[in-house]
Each structure stands twice: as structure tokens, then as C-alpha cells.
């Protein structure tokens, strides 16, 4: 194995003796001079990029557009990050890589599941008293099919370093890779924050993406627990917990925190640094390590404490998050602790009203600064081969801050500090690009790309409710439209089709779905014909708009060998529309069309033609309309590596 990345191991911490792990291997084999650096900026939109560049706000992007090339980059259908990045990774459409949404379903149980990875539990255990001890551990399986382009490069001796590319958990690489989108927090969720307050009616309350805990302030002291994962080692199960204490200054808005063997003091409005904690799963044998940051929002009159989702500790990861396994620990030594969960910007705390807009901005800037520091490190240590580096802040910021700059938005909020915040996020990327350009020499191909662009999210479509109105779904109880999730109110014996995930629509097919009623063959085709026509004719009675402009029939329109697991239809929403908040997990509210007033105000899960990504390079772009799968072939071609037969693109760089 070759690597283009300097690996630093500290033999004796006090001596700082550094060993370049591969220096010796390279003596017998001259390194290839060719370098490729890819800056992957999730959600960067070509229209916004051009506008800010024309305004003179993005000098480095402007220079790259002038000296190199810039074109919109065709995304995937649906234009969702796990789907689009998987297409770039494999050079196939979703029919090839089998990621069709954030969520898919098990046709036997009709239960929604994450589409990117799944956990396979250990089969073999022994019971010792109250403990269940696995004889070998379970594992997590990446569900993305097809081969990653960097694996092909590695086979040809090209060193690779992949920082946080989505849809790569657990990471696959013979080089260096740190996993990104798809990586859970320590609870196994996409991120669950904790909020402790003495102003809560119930003992605990769940909100989307977080858990609220009622605490009491007694003698200027608060005692609470950090909630950990289920203890699978105990027969009785139950979640692990770490007690902690907060000692409040009786006068000043200041508190001392005692968390395991850590003590720190925070002022009101102050964040702690990362705090390492350990959950004892099996006494003296197994400890699950995690890290979190504490934000003392308010001391009095109401006590308010936010704790980030507890992260898999990169220093001692409970599940693999890097290749080689110990690379995340090496990164921690160099960079300090850092967010490891998939999309760390806490959009859920903002939507739940736990964060003010300003607090969300501050927290997302922590994420940006960690990434920016990692970019410096990556560039400093990059010597040869391929370097891919990913930023999430533009995507997450556009989701949450769109409503501050768009007066037509139903949820428009006037805030002088945030009106130009998206522009600032683009300027931060421009500064990062400037740093990357310092590392580009004549032998380096520079690529700046995004997976999709952005649209406003004005109106929600309860697609499942529309299916009820049109007779495709039969409900058991028409009076129970709200609050019953996961399709529990569906009478499958009278249901022809159902929507699941952000853009997926499935036929209730006999022989595939556990209670399927539509026969394969002519009846299936007739249902799809009727659905396609009805969906494209859908009209929003409030304004006369057609909310859907494209219906992809996967078995007709996608290539690849994994189409069988696809939704039967993928829905392309019109500009301004998106699937509702409730429909993707099988709820059926009465109203089909709603104004979106959530802080999550921008989106991209629409007709893919409306939200292309960006492609910039210091090479000329040879195709008029390059697509993500063309760029895969383009990167391989930089090293003279031929594409696989399953790859559907063509070289797009001169």
C-alpha cells in the first residue's frame, strides 16, 4: 500500500520522535508526480456562486473561473447528498450504487431504514450473570454498491486521502479515509442533542433530533445524566448514563462543571471545549468512549444547558470511522478532538427553538473552523496522489438561513445580522479555496465541485395525504390522520402505492411487499402510468402551481444492476416545493399543501434539473453539460486509469 499522506506516529510523547511511515517504501519506487486535489463543497449552487463572484465577493473563485473553467454540474435524481455523492464515487447512477434516498424500507416489514448503512448484530453471545457477552462483535455494512473511484486509483499505485466524503461509512479505502455523512453519533442516530432545564413540564421530552431533560436547581446545584447508548452487554438492556454536576455561583452567571474526572468553569453564553467521557458497558473490560461540548445558555432565572450530540471519539472510536483504523486517532493528536457525526451543524436545535439563530450560526462556525483547520493539515501533509476534502457548512447554512434573505418566503425573518449570512459562507469557501490554490503547482489538477445546488423551500407537499385523496392509499381510520406514524394507519389490503423517504414512491407490489395487492406485469404498469399522469397533473389550489415537474420511473429511466431495490417512482418537485415534514415516515395529515415556516427554509430535494451543482477546474471542461458521473471518469483519466464497464460517464476534463 502506498500513501501520499505523511503519517506521524509518536513513539515517546516527550521526545516528539516522528516516523514517516512510508518513507522507506518510496525509496524503491519514484512517486508519481501527478496530483489531484478535489474540494467538495456540499450544496454550492452555480447561480449563487456566479452572483457573489460577479459582486466581487469571491476573488479566488473568480480567478479560477477566468484562468480555468466553470460549468454547472448535472446532479442525480433525486438530488440528495447520499445519492449524488454515491454517483460521483462510483460513476454510476442510483441504479448502479443502490442509494436512492436518505431512507428506504424493508419491503417485508415496510419499516423505514437508513439507506446508507446498516448494523449487523453479533449472532454469538454467552450469558454471564446479568451480562451478555458477544463472542465476536457485530459489524456495520455500507450499503453503497459499486466500486469507489479511489479504490481503482489505489490499485494502480496512486496514493489517496479522502476527508469526510459522504456515503462512505464505514470507510472503504486502502489509503487514508475519514468517514463523513452516514456516520452516527454515539447513540447511533444522525445526531441527538441534550438540553437540561428547570422549566419543563415532563421529566423528559423528545423533540426531533434532541432530548429535553427536566432538572432542578437545589442549593445552587444541578445534578443530571449524560445519556449514552443501550448497554447491549446487559441482559436487561437499558441505556448507559454518566452522572454530572453543575455548581452555580450564587451571585454571578457562572457555573463549575464536574463531569467524570473533568472540571471546568463556564460563563453564561460560553461553550466548553470538547470533553471526553466513557460509558462503562462491561465493568473493567468495555468502555464506550465519546466526546461532547457543553453550552451554558442561561444560569438564571431559568437554567438552560445544551450538550452537543455525543460524538464517536476519534481517539478511541467505538466503530470504525477511518482507514487505517488508527488514522482518526492520529488526526486527533494533530488537530485535537473534532466532530465525527455526519452533519454536525445542529439544525435540529435551531428548529426546536433551543438555539437562537445567532447560536446556530456560532455552532456551525465551530464546525467550519474545525474543517478549515483539518484542510490546513491535509494540505500541509499532502505529497502526492489524490486528496479529496469535504465541507458541509454551505449546505447546512443554506437549509437554515435561506429564510433570512428571501422576502417571498412564508417563513421570511428580518435579521440584519443574518441577511447576508449565505454570502459569508460562500466567502469562507473562497478563502479556503485560496489556501488550496497555494498548494497547486503545474502538476496538480484542481477540481472544485458540489453535489447539488439549492432552491427555496416555500411549500410542503403531504404526498401520502394526496395518495389518500386520490384513492391510492386506504387508511384504517380516517379520523386518525395526525400523530400515527410509520404507516401504522394504513390498510394495506386496499393500498396500491405509498410514499416513503423524501422523493420515493413505491407500488404495493404482490410478491415484494409483505401485503402487496398489485400484480406484477400489466397491472403494475397500469398503476405506474396512472400515477405518473396524476402526479404531473397535481395542482396547488392556492396558487395554481404544478408542484411536480418530473417523475422518474426507475425501471425505465435508471441503469445499473441494483434497480430492483429502487422506489418505483422518484418524484421531482417544482421550485419552491418539497415533500412535507411528515409524509416521508408514513404520516397522513389532512392538508396536502402547507406553507413551510420551519427555520429549515432552503432545500434541494426537487426536480434535478432545477438544482445542478458546480464544477470548476484549472483544466478546461471538455463537455458542454458535464454530470457527476462524468467527473468520476475525468478523475480516473487524470491518472490514465480506465473506467469500469458499469460507469456510465465520459471524461470531462481536457
Amino acid at each position: 500500500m502506498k500513501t501520499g499522506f505523511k503519517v506521524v506516529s509518536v513513539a515517546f510523547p516527550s521526545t516528539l520522535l516522528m516516523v514517516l511511515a512510508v518513507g522507506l517504501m518510496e525509496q524503491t519506487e519514484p512517486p508519481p508526480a501527478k496530483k489531484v486535489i478535489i474540494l467538495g463543497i456540499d450544496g454550492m449552487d452555480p447561480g449563487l456562486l456566479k452572483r457573489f463572484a460577479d459582486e466581487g465577493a469571491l476573488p479566488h473563485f473568480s480567478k479560477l473561473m477566468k484562468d480555468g473553467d466553470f460549468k454547472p454540474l448535472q446532479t442525480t435524481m433525486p438530488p440528495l447528498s447520499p445519492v449524488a455523492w454515491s454517483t460521483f464515487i462510483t460513476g454510476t447512477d442510483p441504479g448502479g450504487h443502490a442509494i436512492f434516498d436518505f431512507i428506504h424500507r424493508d419491503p417485508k416489514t415496510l419499516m423505514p431504514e437508513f439507506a446508507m448503512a446498516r448494523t449487523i448484530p453479533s449472532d454469538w453471545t454467552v450469558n454471564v450473570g446479568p451480562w451478555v457477552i458477544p463472542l465476536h462483535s457485530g459489524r456495520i455494512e455500507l450499503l453503497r454498491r459499486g466500486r469507489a473511484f479511489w479504490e481503482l486509483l489505489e490499485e494502480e499505485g496512486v496514493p489517496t486521502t479522502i476527508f469526510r466524503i459522504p456515503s462512505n461509512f464505514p470507510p472503504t479505502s486502502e489509503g487514508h479515509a475519514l468517514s463523513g455523512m452516514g456516520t452516527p453519533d454515539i447513540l447511533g442516530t444522525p445526531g441527538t442533542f441534550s438540553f437540561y432545564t428547570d422549566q419543563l413540564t415532563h421529566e423528559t421530552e423528545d423533540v426531533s433530533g434532541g432530548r429535553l431533560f427536566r432538572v432542578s436547581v437545589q442549593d445552587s446545584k444541578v445534578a443530571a445524566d449524560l445519556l449514552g447508548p443501550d448497554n447491549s452487554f446487559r441482559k436487561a438492556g437499558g441505556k448507559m448514563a454518566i452522572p454530572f454536576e453543575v455548581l452555580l455561583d450564587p451571585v454571578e452567571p457562572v457555573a463549575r462543571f464536574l463531569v467524570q474526572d473533568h472540571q471546568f468553569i463556564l460563563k453564561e453564553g460560553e461553550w466548553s471545549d470538547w470533553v471526553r467521557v466513557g460509558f462503562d458497558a462491561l465493568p473493567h473490560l468495555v468502555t464506550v468512549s465519546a466526546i461532547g461540548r457543553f453550552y451554558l445558555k442561561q444560569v438564571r432565572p431559568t437554567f438552560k444547558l445544551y450538550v452537543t450530540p455525543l460524538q464517536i471519539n476519534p481517539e478511541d472510536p467505538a466503530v470504525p470511522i477511518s482507514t487505517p483504523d488508527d488514522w482518526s486517532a492520529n488526526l486527533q493528536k494533530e488537530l485535537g478532538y473534532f466532530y465525527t457525526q455526519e452533519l454536525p451543524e445542529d439544525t435540529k436545535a435551531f428548529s426546536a427553538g433551543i438555539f437562537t439563530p445567532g447560536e446556530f450560526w456560532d455552532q456551525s462556525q465551530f464546525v467550519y473552523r474545525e474543517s478549515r483547520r483539518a484542510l490546513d493539515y491535509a494540505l500541509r501533509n499532502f505529497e502526492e496522489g489524490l486528496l479529496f476534502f469535504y465541507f458541509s457548512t454551505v449546505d447546512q447554512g443554506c437549509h437554515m438561513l435561506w429564510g433570512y434573505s428571501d422576502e417571498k418566503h412564508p417563513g421570511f425573518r428580518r435579521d440584519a445580522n443574518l441577511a447576508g449570512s449565505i454570502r459569508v459562507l460562500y466567502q469562507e469557501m473562497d478563502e479556503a479555496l485560496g489556501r488550496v490554490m497555494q498548494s497547486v503547482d503545474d502538476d496538480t489538477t484542481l477540481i472544485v465541485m458540489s453535489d447539488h445546488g439549492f432552491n427555496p423551500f416555500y411549500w410542503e407537499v403531504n404526498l401520502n395525504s394526496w395518495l389518500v385523496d386520490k384513492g391510492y392509499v386506504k387508511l384504517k381510520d380516517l379520523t386518525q390522520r395526525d400523530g400515527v406514524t410509520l404507516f401504522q394507519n394504513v390498510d394495506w389490503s386496499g393500498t396500491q402505492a405509498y410514499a416513503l423517504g423524501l422523493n420515493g414512491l413505491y407500488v404495493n407490489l404482490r410478491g415484494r411487499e409483505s401485503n402487496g395487492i398489485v400484480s406484477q406485469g400489466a397491472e403494475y404498469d397500469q398503476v405506474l402510468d396512472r400515477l405518473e399522469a396524476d402526479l404531473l397533473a397535481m395542482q396547488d389550489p392556492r396558487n395554481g402551481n404544478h408542484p411536480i415537474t418530473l417523475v422518474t420511473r426507475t425501471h425505465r429511466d435508471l441503469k445499473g444492476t441494483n434497480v430492483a431495490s429502487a422506489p418505483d417512482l422518484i418524484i421531482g418537485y417544482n421550485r419552491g416545493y418539497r415533500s412535507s415534514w411528515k409524509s416521508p415516515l408514513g404520516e397522513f395529515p389532512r392538508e396536502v399543501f402547507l406553507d413551510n415556516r420551519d427555520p429549515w427554509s432552503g432545500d434541494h430535494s426537487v426536480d434535478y434539473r432545477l438544482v445542478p451543482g458546480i464544477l470548476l477546474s484549472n483544466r478546461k471542461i471538455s463537455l458542454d453539460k458535464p454530470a457527476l458521473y462524468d467527473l468520476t471518469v475525468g478523475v480516473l483519466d487524470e491518472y490514465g486509469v480506465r473506467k469500469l464497464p458499469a460507469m456510465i460517464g465520459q471524461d470531462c476534463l481536457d
Partner: protein
Amino acid sequence: MFGSKVKIDKNLMEKVKKYSKIAGYSSVDEFVTHALEKEVAKLEDAGSEEEIRERLKGLGYIS
């Protein structure tokens, strides 16, 4: 005997008899029960509705 009856293919039944002895089960019933328990446990590992909701709810795109 009032227990449930299940039809099993003759060839499969022969294999079940053979392997239940090899694996040290005291009876075919015990072997079949254990095998079914393992399969059910696998399905249950897919998660209760509450667990599924908990796992998915942090995804930014859904509430």
C-alpha cells in the same frame, strides 16, 4: 397435544432430525424452537417502532 402444527418438507425434516442430534439438542422440537427464536430475534433486531423513530428523527430533512 394442543400445540401448533407446522408442515415441513420431508427432505428438510430428515436434515432437521440429523442436525438436531449432531448439534446436541434433546429433541427436534427443541432444535426447531431454537432456530425459530433466532430468526424472530433477527427480525426484532430490526427495531421497534420507537427505536426506528429515535434513529431517524435526527435527520434534518424530516421531523
